[in-house]
């Protein structure tokens, strides 16, 4: 068991080895080591450990270290560019412009093509609308009937309906 004196001496070992103790304390350590075999043993082992630590082999990064890092940086840069675009004021302005454009396009489409709202079964409110509101229902029934008998024809007809509602109306009317 170490006494207080031994504890104090052990606390000085690092600075003792590095010659950074005051001459007074250094003399104290010298004198203690000369008379205390357990502290001397600790000191000698400690010196051996430090020497071995300093001799540990130096590790090196692998030869692919730089190329791997470069590719990670490139990925990071790409992410950063997209993040910049996402967060930039230009992107917000562009977003608003696209949204406004879409709203405008939909509005124009509705003005030019007033039949569009009728597809969902609602009646057109346009004064110039002369189409019989019952006609689409009949037309759809006709498409249904024809699809049962002639699947290929019906597909063509349905595609036409999707592509252009005006056209579908004409096609259905023609069939009728």
């Amino acid at each position, binding site marked *: 068991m170490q006494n207080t004196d031994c504890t104090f001496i052990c606390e000085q*070992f690092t600075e003792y080895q590095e010659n950074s103790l005051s001459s007074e304390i250094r003399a104290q350590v010298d004198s203690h080591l000369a008379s205390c075999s357990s502290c001397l043993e600790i000191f000698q082992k400690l010196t051996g450990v430090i020497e071995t630590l300093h*001799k540990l082999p130096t*590790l*090196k990064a*692998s030869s692919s270290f*730089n190329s791997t890092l470069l590719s990670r940086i490139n990925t990071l840069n790409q992410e950063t560019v997209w993040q910049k675009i996402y967060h930039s004021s230009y992107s917000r302005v562009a977003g608003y412009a696209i949204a406004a454009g879409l709203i405008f396009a939909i509005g124009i489409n509705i003005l030019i093509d007033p039949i569009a709202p009728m597809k969902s079964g609602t009646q057109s409110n346009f004064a110039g609308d002369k189409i019989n509101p019952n006609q689409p229902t009949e037309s759809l029934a006709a498409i249904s009937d024809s699809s049962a008998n002639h699947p290929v024809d019906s597909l063509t007809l349905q595609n036409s309906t999707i592509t252009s509602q005006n056209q579908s109306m004409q096609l259905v009317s023609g069939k009728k």
Partner: protein
Amino acid sequence: MSEKPLKTDEQLIAEFQNGNENAFVELVDRYKDRLVNFVYRFLHDMTDAEDMVQETFLKVYKNKHAYREIAKFSTWIYTIAGNLARSELRKRKRRKTYTMSALSFDDNEFTPVDPGKDTEGIVFNSYAGEEIMKAIYALPEPFKTIIILRDIQELSYEDISTILDIPMGTVKSRVNRARLKLQETLSYLKE
């Protein structure tokens, strides 16, 4: 013909901050081995150590403007690498996938590094070296860090004080206690 004087780390990081990416590459070449050496002593796994060092450089790359020339570049990069390594160690402990330090010494199994496994320069033939590595890994975290910084990386007390953000006197006493602890551990291992 006289050689061009080497630029200091601080000059290189300043150039990198001004957009010169070659300066960054130069810093990578200067520090990659030192940092791998440093982080490996924490993690005891070469692949993880390299990955962590890459993370360190990525952080430097991303946060280049965070560096101010009030501290040495080396202390800054060691702080980043040390924090990442310690954080990885904590994660490992939580996951309990690598519990060497939590086990008793009798249960500890030191895995020697395969010299052919992409680890140029690693040859742990020395029994003492192997035992020391095992003992360092088993040290409590503050002692481990201080031993690695002082006795393996051979940094000055001043640099360690900056990296760990503790007074110089604390660094010195902690180095002493860590060495004694290491010596004690090794004595136990030899018995």
